[in-house]
């Protein structure tokens, strides 16, 4: 299935290669570079590139291209999904998935990749099992290792793969037993010129951090499970219980994992927590344009909107901007023509605004389209869909765990057309 993997950084260097079958020369990446050149932006590189003898399937994450080399028919999503799993695993192991982190831990990376695929077919992709096989590096362990010469490789052999619950290692022990759940919802929305919602949808996830001794069996129920639409589960969740009772019943993996992701579909009403007033105008023949944005809270259920950042890709004719903001800082990159305004918290009493002029290239006609505005924001302690966890029960173990739920709402792909 997957022959080889090349990791390529943004400047086009292949900084890691791994082969699971016979070696494929790295010159195969030339086809990739060719396609990369054609696509003006990194995101636009086609995910599947056919070459005379191979197929290149790639994902772009954390400013690294993960290019898999395929020789014969395989569902492209299979490879893409696997590559994402590789990135997730690296993030899990090293905290971030950057070129530096990978280079610093190249041996661990290599060992992990060796375990994840056998002859190109996925072998161990569950992070619980991998961590039993190869321990993630910690500062303490690195120090100890250098002194004692001991290793990152687990000295006892993994048992998880052989157990009934392949995603959970056995013999887990904690002094403090805790189970935390984060309900994080992202609003994807398109707002039109007049401020009305063209499309809005909520993408939610429940991320869990479960540190419980033994083999706990958890059930999590919601006050309003009917909100959830198009749900996808971690393999540990029992489908049957969900289907019949709308209850999440599962034996959790140890540590951090994503329990559930869901949509709240566009057919439900989605509360839009911010609004944008904008006045962006270009005039034909003038070398000046007006730029004015005000952001304010809308339906926030009484919570504060924070971490607000407004970005906009301006047309090429804009040479520079001269703006003043009532709150936060703005930057304009004259090369990429992106204006970015970091607002932070929105105070409903004193709405932040950004006003000023744009200097335009003279002699060029005004652009057809006003720039779109992208917004990021965060609202703590609120799940905008109204989803609420009802209760969490634990069976199978005697102790009383500590439980916690946190809600958060974020902007996903939140775009305002102007």
């Amino acid at each position, binding site marked *: 299935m997957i022959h080889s993997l090349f990791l390529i950084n943004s400047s086009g260097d292949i900084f890691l290669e791994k082969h699971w079958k016979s070696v494929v020369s790295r010159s195969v990446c030339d086809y990739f570079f060719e396609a990369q050149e054609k696509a003006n932006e990194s995101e636009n590189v086609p995910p599947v590139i056919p070459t005379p003898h191979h197929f290149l399937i790639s994902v772009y994450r954390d400013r690294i291209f993960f290019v898999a080399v395929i020789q014969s028919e395989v569902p492209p999503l299979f490879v893409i999904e696997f590559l994402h799993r590789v990135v997730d695993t690296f993030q899990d192991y090293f905290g971030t998935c950057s070129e530096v982190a990978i280079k610093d831990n190249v041996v661990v990376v290599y060992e992990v990749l060796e375990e994840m695929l056998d*002859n190109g*077919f996925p072998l161990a992709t569950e992070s619980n099992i991998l961590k039993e096989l190869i321990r993630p590096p910690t500062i303490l362990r690195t120090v100890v290792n250098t002194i004692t010469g001991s290793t990152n490789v687990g000295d006892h052999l993994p048992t998880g793969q052989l157990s009934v619950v392949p995603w959970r290692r056995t013999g887990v022990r904690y002094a403090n037993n805790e189970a935390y759940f984060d309900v994080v919802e992202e609003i994807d929305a398109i707002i039109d010129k007049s401020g009305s919602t063209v499309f809005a949808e909520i993408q939610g996830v429940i991320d869990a951090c479960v540190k419980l001794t033994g083999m706990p069996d958890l059930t999590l129920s919601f006050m309003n499970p009917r909100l959830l639409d198009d749900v996808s589960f971690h393999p540990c969740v029992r489908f049957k219980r969900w289907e019949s009772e709308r209850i999440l019943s599962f034996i959790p993996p140890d540590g951090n994992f994503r329990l559930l992701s869901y949509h709240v579909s566009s057919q439900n009403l989605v509360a839009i927590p911010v609004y944008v007033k904008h006045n962006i105008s270009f005039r034909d023949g003038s070398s000046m344009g007006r730029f004015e944005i005000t952001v304010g809270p809308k339906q926030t259920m009484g919570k504060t909107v924070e971490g607000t950042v407004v970005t906009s*890709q301006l047309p090429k004719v804009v040479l520079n901007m001269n703006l003043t903001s009532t709150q936060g800082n703005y930057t304009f990159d004259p090369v990429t023509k992106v204006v970015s305004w970091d607002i932070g918290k929105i105070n409903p009493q004193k709405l932040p605004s950004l006003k000023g002029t744009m200097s335009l290239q003279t002699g060029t006609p005004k652009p057809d389209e006003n720039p779109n505005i992208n917004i990021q924001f965060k609202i703590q302690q609120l799940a905008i869909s109204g989803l609420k966890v009802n209760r969490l029960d634990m069976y199978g173990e005697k102790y009383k765990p500590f439980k916690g739920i946190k809600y958060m709402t974020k902007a996903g792909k939140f775009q305002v057309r102007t």
Partner: protein
Amino acid sequence: HDDLKEMLDSNKDSLKLEAMKRIVAMIARGKNTSELFPAVVKNVACKNIEVKKLVYVYLVRYAEEQQDLALLSISTFQRGLKDPNQLIRASALRVLSSIRVTIIVPIMMLAIKEAASDMSPYVRKTAAHAIPKLYSLDQDQKDQLIEVIEKLLADKTTLVAGSVVMAFEEVCPERIDLIHKNYRKLCNLLIDVEEWGQVVIINMLTRYARTQFLNPNHNESLLEENPDKTFYGSDDEESKQEEMDTALLPKRKPYVMDPDHRLLLRNTKPLLQSRNAAVVMAVAQLYFHLAPKAEGMFEPHLKSFYIRSTDPTQIKVLKLEVMTNLASETNISIILREFQTYIKSQDKDFVAGTIQAIGRCATNIDEVRDTCLNGLVQLLSNRDELVMAESVVVIKKLLQMQPSQHSDIIRHMAKLIDNIMVPMARASILWLIGEYCEHVPKIAPDVLRKMAKSFTNEEDIVKLQIINLAAKLYLTNSKQTKLLTQYVLNLAKYDQNYDIRDRARFIRQLIVPTEKSGVLSKYAKKLFLAQKPAPVLESSFKDRDHFQLGSLSHLLNSKAGGYQELPDWPNSAPDPAVRNVEVSEWTKPSGREKRKEKVEKPFYSDSEGESEPTESADSESPTASESESMSEIESASDSRSDKESDEETKSDNEKNKKKARKEKSKKRDESEDSGQSEGEEKTVKKRKGKEESSSASSSSSSTSEESSSENSSSESEEDSESDTEKKSRKKSSTAKPSPRALEAKQKEISLLDLDDFSSSPTFQTSPSPNTSSKSLNLDLQGLTLTDTTVPSEVVSPSLGAVKTYELLHRITGEGLSVEYCFNRRPFSPDHTMVSVQMQFTNNSETELKNLRIGEPKLQAGMRMQGFKDIAILQPGQVAADTLGIDFYQLLNPSAGKLMGMNEIKEKLTLPEQFRSDQAIVQRVMSIANLGRVPCGLDNEYRFAARTVSGGALVLVTLVTKDGGMAQLTINCEKMVIGTMLVKDIMQALTQ
């Protein structure tokens, strides 16, 4: 590399490890370290496990290049294969099989065979992984490997299943016969297999099913074929014969889905909820290729395909494609409005794609053709040439459909020829003018004049069209254009491109009559100016249907190596008996079977067997304890940031619990031991604060019920399901004697259940009824269009307090009194039933024994699921239980024919006290379990619901006017329910 060699030769493990780490880092960077092979391979037997691992990594990487030296390591692995530890056996086999050295093929073969019958499933899995490795090394081993595959296919563990099917796909995908005996097992195990294995198995089973089962859309496709036949069959008799054939066909071959086919569809369905996109895609393609077709699945999701400026190009293209395919008469206006914003985008390739999409919409939907055309004509004045050119090309195609009406557009385009430089667009304009020169008799020759002037500088496709134009004009208007034509032909005669020279020669012979030119020139006009069929604007994704969906070949639209063709359905099904297993272990209830194998007990599969008892047990307990536990988790939330607050909340927690306990005990005092399963309506009344939340949870669970009933209806091929449907269409009378009369009176209330608003798109797609008023239709459309802009607070409805009714008075019951209420909760054992909460009180001095439901006298179609017998009821004790009744909906006698909504209107006068918003909503809600639907108007109230048993939609509108006048409108498929509801709401609002 001398230093590395030295380190490897040293005795210290730490030095060896350091050396190996540096070597591996070099391999990772792509550096060649093959010269270190002898030094490294010596360490293969090293005791240090990490050194060993890194040596393995090195070995697998370079063994192919250093075959002789690699052999030195083989004996180590052979020893490992005999190790008592299963993990060491597996690891030895894994490395041994990864060394691509042809000489060891016999050793590998032996090792695989042995491992395939190993005790440990993990070793067997490794054996399955090794099979394709050996096969790629030596294809002659195929026969022997197939034997191993056959053996491993029979393995019953989930661990092995995915890997062996992978091996099957790589080695012998054509041996579909090996699957027969394992088919049912694979279907049943599927949910427990790891995700990657699931993808492979699902794809393989798709192919298998295509060879073994009949096309579930068979009848349909036959019917579709027939018009084609009549198209070719010229005389009437034949077509009549055919009509008879089609009439007979369904009778002759009634299609019944093979149970195994259904098994596959059913067992893959839950995997649609996998987190792994590849699994979801695999199931989707399986349904696409194997399931009966469903129409209109994606229309409600149209908005999900709206394009953001930040989407990558390939996503934009795909989304456009989807939107174009979803375009229909009902949604085209929305789509076009959306397209309009795309046209202004800065991404010009995307704009060009949008223009093509508009063109396709225009050809597919007659109603909007003119609108689209006008829009595109406006684009002709766009500043961007690419946009303009694309518009020209699309307009050309559209005009071909009805040229006579659009000569003004042709004239407009003729003017553009001066500005537009894109060759394709120029060629299109010229073709248009030539083709329809009769519509623009004055302009055409002038265009030719201009073109003659610039001929030599044009692109080839433009030149060809100039020649075409000249020829056509010569034929229609030779007076004005004879000289021009000859000039153009002369230029073309000496053109560099031989196509153009050929064309010129050909055309000259055809149009200019000479002595030599034969009969053909007489027909020149017919040849050139024949009526041409309008082109069909087709999707660029159209021709890849023959590939299996979701495959690499499908994506690239070219066959990739190793692609397995998806076979066509067989005409008659092969013998289904081949899938029978002699020792039919897998047909037994799987739960028992699993328990025998302790270690490999799958996680999910057995839940099927056990699900029923747990379900019924759960249905009682959660209701009572719900309200208590909520407080627990609420206080626990938001407190993870620091330990201190943790502590606090913990103690809070305990306080809360204590409180709850106290309250509980108080209650007990009051009602003298109300028992564990106290009716929760009491709790609700007591704790007003909790009322809202618990009602919310009850309403939420009602959706779960709904969706599951939807599930069951989607599987309605099952006879029982459709039978009940049929029955429910029969009329049942309204009169109701017996003590149940009370319930019967209230039944229309409980038949209604809160309906989530998400069903709004189904309004649109449901067959639009003639009986419903136009205004309603408009209203419904308005709803779906504007729903996103309405504030969301209206989503969760608040239910009024639940009314209790008396079933048996304590005097008539000789001390036993029974009260009941409709608690508006789903009845969990059967979702089509309405749950009725009963409360038994013993008011006598003696204990009552053995309370149970006698033989209920139910009307045809009605079903009842009673409560458990109450063994003993102490004096003064109160017991509660729920029973479920399927009232079987009183139905409209003509429902069979007259589908759609019936509308009932009534005028009423509201008394003073019911004129406020709140009062009206509260009164209506108290009568029926309706959901409030947002509405922009102040004086209008809308409610919606769906009946529990039949899922019929009910819409209630109340418009208030000055002076307390009001008009009540109820729309419902079921006339009887409508009338009864009108009566009850009227009563509630006027008294």
